[in-house]
């Protein structure tokens, strides 16, 4: 279902077919808000990108280096063919009190917030690259774009936009009904994201137990 098709469903919910009480900007802004909410909080989109190391750089701003970056999952150093270990500031300070200026091939990373990730040690020359596996935020929807939300839960957008439009009409009771539906669908989406590999993993665990 594309963005424009979802808007048509919302128009029907609001009995707005053929009417122009709401502008198309009202709908597109609202559906983008709902898409940002659903993707940002369910973390349903994952991706990876390779970026070059920068000489003498400890803190990388992934929000500018990667497309739609939300948070890191894992980092692979392509120079050493090793995964970087996720760690905390406290652990880095224990390893080396001057950790920010130590040179070498990165072996650890500290995820700080939605922008920054610190690497330890930092490369002294800009040689090679790393591949970052990460959770993504939603991109900008256009008319013919299909939102990257599993089909089972794509109703979350319709429910969000309908609720948002009813807010503008100050129909709070009706809006609450759609908002609660949206919350339930979002919870379902979060569960789906967490469990999407589960059957495969359970089979692996069973195999392991059989061998034991």
């Amino acid at each position: 279902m594309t963005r424009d098709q979802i808007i048509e469903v919302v128009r029907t919910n609001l009995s707005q077919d053929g009417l122009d009480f709401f502008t198309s900007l009202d709908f597109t802004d609202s559906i983008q808000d709902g898409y940002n909410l659903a993707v940002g909080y369910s973390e349903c989109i994952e991706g990876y990108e390779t970026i070059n190391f920068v000489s003498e750089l400890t803190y990388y701003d992934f929000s500018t280096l990667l497309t739609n970056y939300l948070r890191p999952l894992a980092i692979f150093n392509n120079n050493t063919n090793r995964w970087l270990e996720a760690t905390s500031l406290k652990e880095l300070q224990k390893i080396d009190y001057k950790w920010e200026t130590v040179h070498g091939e990165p072996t650890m990373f500290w995820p700080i917030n939605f922008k920054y990730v610190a690497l330890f040690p930092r490369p002294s020359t800009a040689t090679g690259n790393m591949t970052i596996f990460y959770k993504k935020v939603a991109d900008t929807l256009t008319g013919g774009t299909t939102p990257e939300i599993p089909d089972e839960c794509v109703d979350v957008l319709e429910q969000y936009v309908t609720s948002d439009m009813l807010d503008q009409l100050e129909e709070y009771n009706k809006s609450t009904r759609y908002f609660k539906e949206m919350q339930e669908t979002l919870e379902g989406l979060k569960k789906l994201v967490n469990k999407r590999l589960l059957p495969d993993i359970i089979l692996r665990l069973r195999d392991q137990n059989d061998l034991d």
Partner: protein
Amino acid sequence: MIWTDSYLDSQFTAAEQSVSTDITCIFNRFSLDIILGTSVYTLPSGILGILAVSWKGEPIYPLEHTTLRDSAPYYLPLNAGSQSKPYHYLRVGYGYSKIEFRPVPSESIAADDTNIYGSDIANRVIISCWKVADSSNQLPEFARRRLLKYYVLWKAFAKEGKGQNLKASDYFKLKFDYEKAMFKMAVDNVSKCIVRKLSSIPIDRSRTNFPPSPVLPARYRNT
């Protein structure tokens, strides 16, 4: 009209400050202008917590007033105004308005924020901290618009005057609380990869159906 543009603008700023104060998510670094012989320095407003202070790449450790008191004989010489590279800093005044270095700095180091995330770490005195949102450090885009919208609607409908609607205000307060709780969860998830590492069970590859891993000849192994 009770909702002037300036009133709504002020509420947008208040919303961003309120959320970023309650949920620390804005990481910031800045350098200090160190002057030889001066121990107390005023910090920019909006600091919520200092993560680390580094003096040319070396850490300066925090010192609580009670620790200073309990360790008076040891720190007494530092109180007397001795000068060297500082080893500790004290919080002075309210909140994070000022810090005091001990011993007193024995050199001047100019502030320059150009490369404090990389090549200039070894040349500056840098403070890493959590901050309140401002024009250059805003809440992440994926949550910002909704958080701010619900906050402003909550406050605007509660304002005294023609147009006040307390039912609507309560309604948008609930929506704001929901958004804030979801955003808090998203912020907590950033460090999830560390938690997963702590809880992971080592995998015995010989006993699972993972693809086999190559094994280097003995002469390449660490023994």
